[in-house]
């Protein structure tokens, strides 16, 4: 009896331990395999850094004409500009909603806005893409200009998609502040708006920024919704109404149509590696902000 319990004890421990170990192994495997495939452009195709970090894209240019050009800068620029603009649109609105839920009307916030935010977060990304494609793109084409497939459409779709992330992180950050902070400000004769602007928002800054970075990371990694509305033209856009391409949409467009091991295909893996490295950068930023926030 005692023996059986000891054995079960050991079994239980090792079972849960190995499942936790799987999380580490998976992460390592992803880093190793993506690194291996992503660096093939250098190890196997001997592509130079100046070639890959350029804006020239002609992956099947014949050797006689100077060889293939696989500049990924256009894709990186597309990802950076769409997600940055999306955050710039979304963050103010997200913080406004957060202040509303935490400070202005907690009752309405709890009963009404919380479920609304959760519902927005729950709508699958392809549905955002579908609505962007069937409502936003024609609207831009008919009322603003261009073909509709544009940076503007991508920004709008992404802004709505990351709104829940920013709003809920900011709400948590504001709710976590000690109530005495606001009371002190109010006791000094500040109006509610003054208290929010000068005390609450600055104190919750780290948490709010964390939400913004998380939103940025989501926008950066989002693939299908963006791909459906931005037009996917491999050029740097000149205006907000021009089509463009991002890292994720580039991968989505070409991965199925290129031959495994070809330079074109391996360039896509390199783009995936960039996405992976960037998500590490975002984790690093969030950890940094988390440590800063803990000081308060």
């Amino acid at each position, binding site marked *: 009896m005692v023996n059986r*319990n*000891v054995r*079960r*004890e050991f*079994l*239980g421990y090792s079972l*849960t*331990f190995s*499942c*936790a170990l*799987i*999380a*580490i192994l*998976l*992460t*390592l495997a*992803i880093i190793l*395999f*993506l690194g291996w495939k992503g660096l093939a452009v250098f190890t196997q195709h001997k592509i130079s850094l100046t070639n890959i970090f350029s804006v020239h894209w002609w992956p099947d240019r014949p050797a006689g004409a100077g060889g293939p050009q696989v500049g990924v800068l256009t894709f990186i620029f597309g990802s950076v500009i769409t997600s940055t603009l999306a955050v710039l649109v979304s963050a103010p*609105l997200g913080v*406004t*909603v957060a202040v*509303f*839920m935490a400070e*202005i*009307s907690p009752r309405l*916030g709890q009963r*009404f*806005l919380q479920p609304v*935010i959760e*519902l*927005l977060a*729950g*709508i*699958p*990304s*392809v*549905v955002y*893409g*579908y*609505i962007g*494609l*069937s409502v936003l793109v024609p609207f831009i084409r008919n009322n603003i200009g261009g073909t509709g497939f544009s940076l503007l459409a991508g920004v709008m779709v992404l802004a*709505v998609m990351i709104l829940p992330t920013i*709003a809920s992180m900011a709400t948590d950050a504001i709710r976590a502040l000690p109530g005495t902070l606001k009371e002190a400000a109010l006791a000094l004769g500040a*109006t*509610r*708006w*003054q208290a929010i602007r000068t005390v609450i928002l600055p104190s919750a800054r780290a948490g709010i920024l964390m939400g913004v970075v998380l939103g940025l990371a989501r926008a950066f*990694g989002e*693939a*299908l919704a963006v*791909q*459906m509305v931005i037009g996917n033209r491999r050029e740097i856009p000149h205006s907000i109404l021009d089509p463009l391409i991002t890292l994720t949409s580039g991968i*989505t467009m070409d*991965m199925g149509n290129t031959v495994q091991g070809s330079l074109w295909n391996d360039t896509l893996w390199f783009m*995936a590696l960039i*996405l*992976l490295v960037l*998500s590490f950068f975002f984790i690093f930023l969030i950890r940094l902000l988390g440590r800063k926030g803990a000081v308060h």
Partner: protein
Amino acid sequence: MKAQVKDKLATAGFYLGAGLVVLILFSLLGYIIVHGYRAIDLQFLLSEPETLRAGGGIGPNIFNSFYLLFLSMALTAPLGVLAGIYLAEYARQNQFTNLIRLSIETLTSLPSIVVGLFGLLIFVTMFGFGYSLVAGALALTVINLPMMVRVTEENLRTVPRDLREASLSLGATKWQTICRVVLPTALPGLITGIIITAGRVFGEAAALLFTAGMTTPHLNFSQLDITQPTCPWNPFRPGETLAVHIWKINSEALIPDVRRVADGSAAVLVLVVLGFNLFARWVARRFTCRLTGG
């Protein structure tokens, strides 16, 4: 006086912002439901998609989505719960635990298309599964594992210490305490978490493009030989889910009635995801009542 005016203006601004978000949601949902209502009928829900002609449905896609969801949750739920138990009950404050947490954080923030590519490389190509439901389920497991672990850990941590101590003081071993006391107490939260995770699986598409594939063979529901490609239950056949179907028809379809199929598919997808959320809430409330009221 000026400060008071500013305060009023700011308050109005906050109401406006909140109102705008509510408006966005209701116009999104309104659009989906109204357009979906026109497109959905029984024939649409049951028949197979067409590639060139009008009149196709989404029957196999709905089936694939649910079957894939089942396959992936059958993997994710045990793995995630066990890893969560480790973190909540056994893990000490050391480098190894830090490494687990860092890994989980990394997995959480991976773009789903990157997971899809990893799945293409490992499950589809190296393991030789090809574009298949199994490869899709494994990719989805990579995506959902971190969430399952976190949900489990959080729920186990809400179980009062007294319960564990009472059980241990009665002579139960740690594992017995976990299985007979901690897990049953945390069960409502765990089930809720599993349902919510499942809802997210349903809408996932980017990771499935290159793992479960973008095609479905003709399914024959009277075919029970699981090794046959026409058998719906064969996990090694490719399967296009509803979410992937929505992406595909919107970006490259040749059928003349794209709008109708897209409208109907989006509505079904959103309604199912909403259904999962409501179901999770219902389960949570029901179980809580029984545990506290019984």
